[in-house]
């Protein structure tokens, strides 16, 4: 009989190897599924794991998709480590997009053309503030009324979506747009500067990596970060040490909301360049997955974002190159995540063959 036995300390080697094992297992299952569907398994795997990185433009697309995921997930990691369960990052992304987009729209409609070095930071700052404001509602309700942040942040996602609809179908609609739900395209001065010519990749990825480094420093080298983590791991100890639970709550949610808002602003100032009803395609929720796959650690988050972006893009390519149904991507992602989590057990536990010890 197999037994799980706790290791005296987490295994370093396993921490590196377990994601690879999970990846291989997923690939094997995927290959089996492809074969069952009558598609060539080798080609199927290539489309999912190789094609998304095939060439400069492909890599740029992966990084482009990963940029908001990294940014949001970093904020979520701070939250989750502090035991604040912010499930509503999606709403904060939308508000950030609205706020940042609102700034860009105002500059555009007023005809104000600022140098890029001023306009872009303004837009991004707007995004950060928008996200923080939305997260503040959750923080306030938890702080003053004890309302669960899981519920409040989640409900606010739906409210945010309707707010986007309202603005884009109403007051912010492009008057020259035939009544279609979109704003004017933003003035070029507000667009994020590109990083790689001939691709859509913009400086956002560099910004995201800088934030990742900053996050690492914050969580693991500052006193505040330490307080947050202790508050998350052992709330009673934190209380005895005099760490304010309320301050931790607000810090975590402000950081998370701000980063999510930043991601939203980057999306509208980057690839979209206008506001539409389709600003975010579930980025806030995908980021939660990225956060856990990356084990709440900045480096893991960066890698996990790239991996998940590859899978998402691979799913699109699977359709156009192989005629695979779209639903398959969800199955693979779910499988990968489940296997990753299962294999992670090996880090903390050893598998042992145990014989029944006679009582």
């Amino acid at each position, binding site marked *: 009989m197999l037994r799980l036995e706790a290791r005296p300390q987490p295994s370093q080697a396993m921490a590196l190897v377990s994601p690879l094992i999970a990846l291989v297992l997923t690939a094997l299952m995927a290959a089996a599924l492809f074969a069952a569907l009558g598609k060539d398994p080798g080609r199927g795997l290539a489309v999912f794991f190789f094609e998304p990185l095939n060439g400069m433009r492909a890599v740029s697309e992966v990084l482009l998709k990963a940029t908001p995921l990294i940014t949001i997930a970093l904020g979520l990691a701070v939250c989750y480590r502090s035991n604040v369960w912010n499930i509503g990052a999606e709403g904060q992304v939308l508000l950030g997009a609205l706020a940042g987009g609102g700034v860009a729209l105002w500059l555009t409609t007023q005809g104000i053309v600022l140098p890029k070095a001023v306009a872009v930071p303004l837009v991004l700052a707007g995004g950060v503030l928008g996200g923080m404001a939305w997260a503040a509602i959750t923080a306030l309700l938890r702080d003053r009324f004890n309302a669960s942040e899981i519920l409040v942040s989640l409900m606010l996602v739906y*409210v945010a979506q309707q707010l986007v609809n309202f603005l884009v179908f109403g007051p912010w609609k492009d008057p020259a747009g035939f009544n279609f739900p979109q704003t004017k395209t933003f003035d070029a001065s507000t667009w994020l500067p590109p990083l790689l010519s001939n691709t859509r990749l913009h400086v956002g990825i560099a910004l995201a990596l800088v934030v990742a480094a900053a996050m690492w420093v914050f969580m693991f080298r500052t006193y505040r970060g330490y307080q947050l983590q202790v508050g998350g791991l052992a709330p009673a100890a934190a209380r005895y040490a005099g760490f304010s639970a309320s301050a931790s709550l607000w810090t975590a949610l402000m950081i998370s909301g701000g980063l999510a808002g930043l991601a939203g602003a980057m999306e509208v100032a980057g690839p979209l360049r206008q506001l539409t009803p389709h600003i975010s395609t579930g980025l806030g929720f995908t980021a939660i997955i990225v956060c856990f796959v990356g084990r709440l650690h900045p480096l893991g988050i960066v890698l996990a974002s790239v991996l998940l972006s590859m899978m998402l893009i691979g799913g699109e390519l699977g359709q156009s190159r192989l005629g695979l149904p779209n639903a*398959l991507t*969800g199955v693979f992602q779910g499988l990968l995540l489940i296997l990753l989590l299962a294999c992670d057990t090996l880090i903390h536990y050893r598998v042992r063959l145990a014989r029944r010890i006679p009582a």
Partner: protein
Amino acid sequence: MNEIALLVAATLASGTPLALAGLGLLLNEKAGVLNLGAEGIMLVAAIAGFAAAFTTGSDTLAFAAGALAGGLLAAAFGGLVIWLNTNQYATGLAVSLFGYGFSAFVGVGYVGKKLAESSPFEVPLLADIPFLGPALFKHHPMVYLTIALALAIVWFLYRSRAGLVLRAIGEAPESAHALGYRVRWVRLAAVVAGGALCGVAGAFLSVVYAPLWVEGLVAGRGWIALALTTFATWRPLRVLLGAYLFGGVTMLQFALQGAGVNVASQLLAMLPYLATIVVLALISRNPAWIRINMPASLGKPFHPG
């Protein structure tokens, strides 16, 4: 007057799947397990139920199929979370994701298919009472079963030994283990039972409420149900209240639109969510109340020995 009666009726119907799923999740959470996979479970059960109803023409078999499918996926979740001690939040999300894709994949052949006609349900005699009749007595049996279920769960949790064990395990698994209770098996039982209830909710959506199958049918109701258990501060009757509140405000905003009320439809559409937040804030003001009712070990892994 008639419109109000119809609104009440619509509220009951619309709140039932939320209530069923919410009650199932409540069982999970009382035992200390947080199952974020509710959405995926409801989807898988919805297609299972639809397929069963389509093939056999029987509603009862459809609900059974939904419960079975929900229970199985929940068991997989339980195995991962209880025995392998994987992170509950992440595993739940993974199950949701997987459930969405899997149900879409498997259900491709059922899109556009129609189920056999079912005659409208009415409680004899009572349905003819003016106002109360159309409001309360013209519903599918599952609506009444849900209310009965909520009462049964109250009895189970607070009046039966088994329920006491369940709650004890949710509060202090180490102590329960020391007393000799098989913590992990009880948790698994709660997870499976909860999953089965979510499954019935999913089947209700695809077989009675819509009734049709298309991918993503559940459209976020699993998440709403999760939110509702928190809203209900883990008390079964409050789950019902929350579900009907949500369903009711949803129907109300449609009624307001139809009546030509001069508020943008998007703002009206925010009402159910805002209402839930406001009521939650009011209910939760007393932190002691939450501490009393929230299972202390919710979301934390348990290691025997």
